[in-house]
């Protein structure tokens, strides 16, 4: 051990100079910000809790009301169903978009442009009314008599229209996310696969998709959260999801604000619940070692380097 001598710059001070804590500098602005923000927060809290028009008792009464819970279930179903279908379709579109065959790439490009370039709300109403364009959908083999006609009006029931609209719209966004993931895979990886003689599908499955996952998964998590709130749009089609369920009740009772609060609280709770795994995913895939699958981390480097000949 080496002897360390500590020089005291100020003989008066009681503490050892080397051990004194280093304090953060707080500006006047920081103190002002604390005071102002606290005052605003307290003000809002008092107003919200004392204003009788919020009718917190009504909120409490309806928060677990059967209609609301059923609406919540439908919202959850719509979220996951349209995300799952949209992701599948988006994967197909992303692969098409990267095709070397021009018409295929252009078709996917046009799809993505149209569905991302128009509002979801408009798309939803469009699918709900598509029977005006095609009153009868005939499924069958062209130029033969084989096939059946389906009444489009019956087919496009509100829930179907909602699912179709959300799925087709989500597919366009997922296609862009997946395509971004694909392009994060280095050119060298594709050349290595090519030089082994891998077919296009094999390359996609074994080389490109596994390596694109780290950038696709966190972005997809964000889409799920967005979709959860986005489903409220289908209330315009009369689908009794969470928002529409609340609307159905306040149309009867005129307790508009309390019921909107009920719906909002559920949206908030679900979003927070989804945010947790989402932030875990983001952490997991943003680390430098993220390219390693989990089991890789268990391997301990024991052997020294070099050629064991």
């Amino acid at each position, binding site marked *: 051990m080496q002897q360390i001598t500590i020089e005291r710059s100020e003989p008066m001070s009681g503490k050892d100079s080397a051990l004194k804590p280093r304090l953060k500098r707080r500006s006047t602005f920081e103190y002002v910000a604390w005071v102002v923000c606290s005052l605003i927060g307290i003000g809002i809290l008092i107003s919200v809790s004392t204003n009788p028009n919020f009718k917190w008792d009504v909120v409490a009464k309806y928060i677990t009301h059967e209609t609301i819970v059923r609406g919540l279930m439908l919202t959850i179903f719509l979220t996951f169903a349209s995300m799952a279908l949209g992701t599948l379709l988006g994967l197909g579109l992303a692969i098409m978009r990267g095709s070397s065959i021009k018409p295929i790439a252009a078709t996917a490009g046009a799809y993505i442009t149209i569905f991302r370039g128009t509002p979801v709300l408009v798309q939803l109403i469009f699918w709900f009314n598509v029977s005006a364009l095609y009153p009868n959908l005939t499924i069958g083999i062209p130029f033969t008599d084989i096939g059946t006609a389906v009444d489009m009006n019956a087919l496009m029931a509100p829930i179907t229209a909602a699912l179709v609209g959300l799925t087709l719209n989500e597919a366009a966004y997922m296609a862009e996310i997946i395509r971004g993931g694909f392009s994060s895979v280095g050119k060298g990886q594709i050349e*290595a696969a090519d030089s082994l003689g891998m077919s296009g599908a094999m390359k996609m499955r074994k080389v490109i998709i596994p390596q694109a996952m780290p950038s696709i998964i966190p972005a997809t998590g964000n889409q799920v959260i967005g979709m959860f709130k986005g489903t409220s749009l289908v209330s315009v089609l009369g689908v009794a999801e969470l928002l529409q369920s609340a609307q159905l009740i306040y149309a009867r009772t005129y307790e508009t604000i309390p019921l909107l609060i009920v719906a909002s609280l559920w949206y908030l709770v679900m979003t927070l619940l989804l945010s947790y795994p989402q932030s875990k995913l983001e952490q997991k895939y943003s680390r430098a070692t993220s390219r390693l699958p989990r089991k*890789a981390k268990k391997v301990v480097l024991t052997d020294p380097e070099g050629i064991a000949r």
Partner: protein
Amino acid sequence: MSTDGTIHARGIRKSFGPKTVLKDINLDIASGEICCIIGPSGSGKSTVLRCINGLETVDSGVLKVNGENFGYYETDTAYHALSPKKLAEQRTKVGMVFQQFNLFPNMTAQENIMAGPVLVKGADKKESAKRAHELLASVGLSGFGDYYPAQLSGGQQQRVAIARSLAMDPEIMLFDEPTSALDPEKVGEVLMVMQDLAKKGMTMVVVTHEMGFAREVADSLIFMDDGYVVERGDAREVLRNPKEPRTQAFLEKVI
């Protein structure tokens, strides 16, 4: 079947847009020959290798690899591109080792080595695993099968990459500056593996800046500059006694 390990090129031209990268490439590499390609950066060395295993297509000229027209079949009037399946089949007979290793990071060393035989050739998994063990041992990495590329040093990764190419039982092995991305102390271990391989009678084409390797291991040497093969001949002869002024100037700089 003409899987014979030869490479034969006549008047190959290749352009990227307006830029002609290969202007008139002529090569004859015999079965089992170890050929080094040297030359300044940008002279087209990588492009030659990439043409030989079909990562790039040549614009014109004759290119026969393993005795077959590579990537095309010839009729009286033209060369017609082969189907992707046939091209892939031709490629499996030519192994390529890259400067940046290009191991698949999502697979272990062993899975990397098994990828070709199992996924492409449909080989038996058990047999391939056994073969992968042997190959790992042959590049001095027994026991490293479960490591992921990120857990290996550059030199180790490159040796796995060599084993991965060998697993396809290629007739020809191409190396594009296999030691250029390595720390100086790791260069030797990779060169040693390549030297071992050279003794086994496989055709090898090696783009390298390692003049020591060229002198000791190579049979023939090609000096490329500006898209041309400027000089070719016996490796030691060219290195000791270069005929072309451009070769002389280049060798003076690198040795």
